[in-house]
């Protein structure tokens, strides 16, 4: 191909290598610098060795690509020479016909070689090209230097993980500051916030929460998760979390129709009916059944003493009008409730109550004996009505449990207090006590040390004896231990990295176990 061609090719290859190297260095530095900035912002957690490996790898890849962009063999170089030196395809022809003989071909080859021997690349173009590549490399170096400086500054000793953790000062409740809204300060979402929120979403997804409520709740939580990065102040974040909490409550309450039903109950004069309503509101199926049974028995049986024992016997027929009177009262209460509640004809509870009222009407109008009352009331009250409640109550209990847990978790993760929610202190999520529940303070447990309210669903159940009826009854007991426990959990979870892996697993399991409600 001639000395001229080889000389120019050497020059060109040298330039291509230099340019490829500059690209390699620039890309490697840019990639590493970008990763350092992202790590500094806390958006990802990456090993520094891995970052450099990725940078070097990408740099090599692009540098090689640039080299082959500039040089792809002699044919390509011949084309470049023709273009740069404006030789009208002379070099390409020389290369293509390098092995051919012929009068004109030989002359062409010779002429081109002579031209190439005397040719030089245009300096101005070369200089411009190198200046551009040099500038890019300089920018990359500067960018890398700045990001490295910021990264190293971030890793100084007083800038530790605890700064990312929510403030879990134990003395706060004694200072009475929990009820004050949080002071505005800069908020940066951490991986911990996101992980917790993701776990919460997963919990709700896998829970038995009613489908239409579940979709809404998940949507709210997912929206919160996706928007975490947009909050710059803690107060803005808490305001949003409060909205989510209210939305979750409202969503679940709307599907828990028994709440709507009980909300319309006034303090009923009928003691057993009133207790039945409380049990339904509390989603306590066993109490519902027992109260319903009591209601049924009280209607139709009376206690007499026989042979020194208290036995239940069917009421005498003279009592029929009294029974009908009681049933009339119950029916009227039920009709009033239907009118005043937000229940609709689509709600199952509405259907149950309506059917019961129809039976009661029939009994009142048509029954001529207590046996007739038995015949008509028993299959409904102890049959379809209780069966209906058996399906409804547990499902709504589950909804309520999921609602309570979700709200308490949101409060814990984002340190939302009662004051933030506009509620009275210690009015955190509790298991419902009936219509007058929220005003009551949590009773102390006889056993002590149980889980209680304060924004979490840690609770337990203890047997207590009702002083009025001397009957064994099950009461829910709530104490403030839950709030302290949640603070322990938060502190530990924020510093989980410091523990060995097996210990981390144990700790997670321990706190998960504590959150699981105790089965009856």
């Amino acid at each position: 191909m001639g000395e001229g061609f080889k000389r120019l090719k050497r020059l060109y290859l040298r330039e291509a290598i230099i340019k490829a190297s500059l690209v390699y260095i620039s890309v490697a530095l840019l990639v590493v610098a970008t990763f350092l900035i992202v790590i500094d912002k806390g958006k990802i957690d990456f090993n520094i060795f891995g970052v450099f490996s990725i940078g070097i790898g990408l740099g090599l890849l692009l540098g090689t690509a640039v080299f082959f962009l500039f040089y792809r063999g002699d044919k390509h170089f011949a084309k470049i020479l023709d273009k740069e030196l404006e030789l009208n395809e002379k070099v390409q022809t020389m290369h293509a016909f390098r092995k051919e003989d012929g009068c004109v071909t030989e002359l062409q080859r010779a002429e081109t070689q002579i031209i190439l021997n005397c040719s030089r690349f245009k300096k101005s173009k070369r200089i411009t090209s190198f200046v551009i590549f040099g500038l890019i490399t300089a920018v990359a170096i500067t960018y890398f230097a700045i990001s490295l400086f910021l990264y190293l500054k971030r890793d100084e000793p007083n800038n530790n993980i605890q700064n990312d953790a929510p403030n879990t000062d134990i003395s706060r409740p004694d200072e009475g500051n929990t009820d004050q809204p949080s002071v505005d300060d800069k908020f940066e979402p951490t991986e911990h916030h996101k992980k917790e929120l993701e776990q919460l979403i997963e919990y709700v997804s896998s829970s038995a929460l009613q489908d239409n409520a579940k979709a809404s709740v998940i949507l709210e939580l997912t929206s919160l998760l996706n928007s975490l990065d947009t909050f710059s102040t803690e107060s803005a974040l808490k305001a949003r979390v409060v909205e989510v909490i209210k939305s979750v409550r409202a969503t679940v309450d709307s599907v828990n129709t028994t709440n709507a039903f009980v909300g319309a109950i006034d303090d009923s004069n009928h003691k057993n009916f009133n207790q039945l309503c409380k049990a339904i509101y509390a989603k306590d199926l066993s109490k519902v059944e027992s109260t319903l049974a009591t209601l049924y028995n009280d209607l139709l049986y009376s206690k007499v003493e026989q042979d020194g024992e208290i036995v239940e016997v069917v009421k005498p027929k003279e009592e029929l009008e009294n029974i009908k009177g009681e049933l009339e009262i119950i029916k009227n209460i039920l009709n009033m409730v239907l009118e005043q509640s937000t229940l609709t004809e689509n709600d199952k509870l509405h259907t149950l109550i309506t059917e019961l009222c129809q039976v009661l009407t029939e009994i009142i109008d048509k029954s001529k004996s207590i046996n007739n009352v038995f015949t008509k009331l028993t299959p409904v009250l102890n049959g379809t009505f209780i069966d209906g409640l058996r399906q409804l109550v547990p499902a709504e209990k589950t909804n309520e449990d999921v609602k309570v847990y979700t709200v308490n978790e949101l409060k814990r993760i984002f340190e939302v207090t009662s004051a933030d929610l506009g509620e009275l202190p210690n009015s955190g999520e509790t298991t419902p006590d009936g219509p007058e529940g929220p005003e009551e303070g949590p009773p102390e447990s006889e056993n002590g040390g149980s889980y209680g309210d304060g924004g979490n669903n840690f609770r337990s159940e203890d047997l207590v004896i009702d002083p009025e009826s001397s009957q064994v009854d099950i009461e829910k007991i709530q104490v403030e231990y839950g709030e302290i426990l949640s603070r322990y959990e938060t502190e530990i979870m924020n510093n989980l990295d410091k523990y060995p892996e097996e210990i981390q697993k144990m700790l997670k399991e321990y706190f998960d176990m504590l959150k699981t409600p105790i089965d009856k």
Partner: protein
Amino acid sequence: MKQVNLENIEKVKKFSETVKLIKDELRKDVVGQNEIVDNIIIAIIGGGNVLLEGIPGVGKTRLVRSLGRTLSLPFSRIQFTPDLMPSDVTGTNVIEKDENGKMVSSFRKGPIFANLVLADEINRATPKTQSAMLEVMQEHKITVGNTTYKLDEPFFVLATENPVEQDGTYPLPEAQMDRFVFKLVMKFPSDDELVDIVNMTQITLDETANAVVNGPTILEMRSLASQVPVIDEVTRYAVRLVSGTHAELASSPASAKKYIKYGASPRAAQALITCAKVRALINGNYNVSYEDIDALARPVLRHRIKINYTAVNEKLTTDDVIDLLVKETKRK
């Protein structure tokens, strides 16, 4: 570096000198029209026929006659008229008495039997007569009866047509148009050129060019030109240019799709490469470049493509469309 054969250098030097001589001689009789002269020389060396178009009096016939003198080739002129018969062109068998008094049939050669044929106003002849030229122009042989007569090389047909006289003309069919390697348009001379023409013709109306080359020399030049190397990229460029004239092809440029009705035949690609080699050598280059192809695009394509009404409506000529095509065809 390998030593170059001196003989080769001499050959190429002789080529350049011969071309220069031809040009100089032609300039004695033809004023201006440099591009036409250059292209005719390219066509002759390339072995192609040329169609000359121009208004009466611009020097078409004079140029061809002068060329005949310069090339010292047997020259004949055929004036095409509507009543011209094919046998008037090719020749015919006649019955005549031999020396013994016997009646024998002998073939009388027509004016086509020359090396350089001027077919004047070819579009005045009937299609039948025009078709007699087809075989001659392509294959350089004539078939009369059962006998085929080969014409002496080099053989060229330089045809002229007058665009002005529309009455009594028969447009040349595409098949015949395709036989012309170039179509050259002789424009009206400039004022200065016309002054020179007037002054020159005051002295004499006859051509004064001298013979500087002969048939064998032309053939040698043709052989030398055919050896000029062409790289594959340039050949493909020429091919893309020609195939780009076909609007129905997906790869054709936008201007072809918009303005061209009929595209060029493969002969156009052959003509481009053959004549580009000659042009390169005439210009002192030993290889064909994109520039050579671009320079010959107009004469090679203008009689081979047909523009549509859209181009006419936008007042575009065939040359304008060819220029657009060249602009839009990518070099690789």
